[in-house]
């Protein structure tokens, strides 16, 4: 089935042109908004969302992916970005998709993108899939800070106005909000959110850390353990076909239930 791919700048307001790519099949029965992980996490998952977008499109599911304000090809400097800006980026894309049609909207978020989600966003979509979510901001920030320690840039972490992490200049306020962030799930939205966790073929159970992370989902059908190599860890590019297959099946089930 043919699909159209368009890349454009979405004007959130006069100073915020957000770069996005939309893939639209000729018949659309749902729309997925992909949320990439933050900072360096973007690079380890980009190919997975591209492949997912192609697969979804063959099943009449349109999709949009975009660069957060101040990152990638979107307007602005990363040091100007705030937590609210990035949440507004998501809300604006949802509003834009809603304005174009009445199809259900689903979010597929990778890694640290889960930290941006809140009840306001969840209320506006029909469902959310979390792919290996990072739910603890402090752990994510520690990872990024270690990156700079290893790169010998520790002094930059002490700058008063912003930090420089892996080439991104990030204002201290955003850093601090992310660090304090813990993904919280309101009971009324619980049924909307599915956690997709990849486990290696020989791993029988989740690590204790991950069990603690997803304690709200354990013992529910909203936690899916998928035997899929952890592609984002690998220095070699791996397309997570099994994860994408599960994700698609889940979307199709959700669409049928709408």
């Amino acid at each position, binding site marked *: 089935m043919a699909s159209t791919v368009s890349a454009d700048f979405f004007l959130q307001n006069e100073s915020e042109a957000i770069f996005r790519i939309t893939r639209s099949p000729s018949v659309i029965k749902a729309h997925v908004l992909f949320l990439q992980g933050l900072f360096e996490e973007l690079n380890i998952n980009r190919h997975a969302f591209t492949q997912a977008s192609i697969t979804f499109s063959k099943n009449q599911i349109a999709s949009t992916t975009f660069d957060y304000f101040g990152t990638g090809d979107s307007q602005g400097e990363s040091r100007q970005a705030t937590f609210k800006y990035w949440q507004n980026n998501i809300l604006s894309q949802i509003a834009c998709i809603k304005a174009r049609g009445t199809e259900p909207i689903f979010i597929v978020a990778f890694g640290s993108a889960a930290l941006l989600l809140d009840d306001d966003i969840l209320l506006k979509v029909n469902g959310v899939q979390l792919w290996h979510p990072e739910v603890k901001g402090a752990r994510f920030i520690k990872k990024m800070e270690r990156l700079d320690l*290893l790169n010998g840039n520790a002094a930059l972490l002490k700058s008063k106005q912003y930090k420089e992490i*892996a080439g991104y200049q990030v204002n201290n306020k955003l850093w601090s909000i992310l660090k304090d962030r813990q993904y919280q799930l309101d009971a009324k939205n619980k049924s909307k959110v599915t956690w997709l966790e990849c486990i290696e073929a020989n791993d029988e159970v989740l690590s204790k850390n991950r069990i603690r992370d997803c304690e709200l989902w354990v013992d529910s059908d909203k936690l899916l353990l998928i035997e899929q*190599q952890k592609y984002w*860890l690998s*220095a070699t590019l791996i397309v997570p076909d099994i994860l994408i297959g599960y994700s698609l099946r889940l979307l199709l089930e959700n669409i049928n239930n709408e």
Partner: protein
Amino acid sequence: MSELNKIQQKLIKILQVLMPSYEVDFWQNDVELFGALPELDSMTIVTLIGEIEDKFDTEIDDEDITEDNFLTVESLTNFLENKLV
């Protein structure tokens, strides 16, 4: 199997996931890690540390992220043994 061997096997499994282009037999005691493998850039080392923390249910202090501890498979195994046992 000794505790040291168990730790090393678990560590090698993590290294295999991170760098699947190397055969299982490649990961011997004397294989140099820090600065020796092109795939092991700073992002991969951060990922390795995260996976070690996850799989061994432990926390690694920033002060322990040293060239000495991460020099070879053996030195990293010994560091983990000292930390965990």
